[in-house]
């Protein structure tokens, strides 16, 4: 796992899923059972944008890139 994936895992488990009794790793599907809702997707996008220093355009927010934290890191941070 890259440092970017580790940072994403820490952010999601600590800030987005705290108190929900759930935790993700780099390959956990993010959208299959309501794990990430419409508020948390914005917080996740904001985290990625801050870390890479520029916006994530809406047209690039597609499942092939957001399937799990590993694909997010590969698509936007590495």
């Amino acid at each position: 796992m890259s440092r970017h994936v580790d940072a994403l895992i820490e952010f999601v488990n600590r800030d987005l899923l705290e108190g929900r009794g759930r935790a993700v790793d780099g390959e956990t599907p993010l959208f299959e059972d309501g794990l990430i809702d419409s508020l948390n997707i914005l917080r996740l996008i904001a985290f990625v944008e801050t870390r890479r220093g520029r916006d994530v355009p809406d047209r690039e927010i597609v499942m092939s890139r957001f399937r799990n934290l590993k694909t997010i890191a590969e698509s936007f941070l590495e």
Partner: protein
Amino acid sequence: MTETPQRRDGPGIRDHGDGRVTLGGIMPALCRAVDRRLRVAASREGARELRCPALIERAVLHRAGYFEAFPHGPTEIRDCEYSLQPAACYQCYAELAGTCVDRTVLTVCGRCYRRSEDTFAGATRLWEFTMREVVLLGAADWIRAERAAWIDRVSDIAREIDLEVSVSVATDPFFGPSGRGRRVLQQLKELKHEIRAVIDGEDVALASVNLHETFFANRFDLQDAAGERAHTACVAFGLERWAAAIVAQRGEAAAAALAGRDL
């Protein structure tokens, strides 16, 4: 009234502006022929047909979350509790509210009214138009499978009448609260697919295939056979657009031949 920059008359289309058209020539028969073909497709999947009023109770739209998804609201009628329906499927959920649904398929056709377009034009961007819908209600797995099957069915129908179409994931939010979060989530989950065709140089959606997950089932208290919250989906067709696409892509002579028979 909304300013229409350019009225677009066409074969059998008299554009009055403001998204209002009178159809003549082969267009009414062509719309009917397309609708017959769609009803046959729905019937093969066991659809039960409903005919709902174009006047929809505003309370049903509130319950369906319409005003959260589309803050500009529907086309209103003054001094009464009704609006003009923006889509044909809302009254289907209301009809089934509080029941158990199990591989339930409904089909409904009605006049619908949407004033949200900035530029009304010809028969492709109308304030008042005709929508045939197939509404699917049941367990999540069945709904997912039916969504894929209906994308294929609609593409096949288009191919049968030699329409060149493409399938794409749509990005406009179509239910739930508006805002970027909802929009990107619907985009990510690929909840809305469109079957699109080029009409006179413009790429427009002929049909959309929409997954709602449990959104409408929560609003209208719908359970599946296992006692879980049901999932729903709808397949929506704009009949005037199908007719316009046939004329534009096949030509008037071929369109006239199609209008006179079962597709």
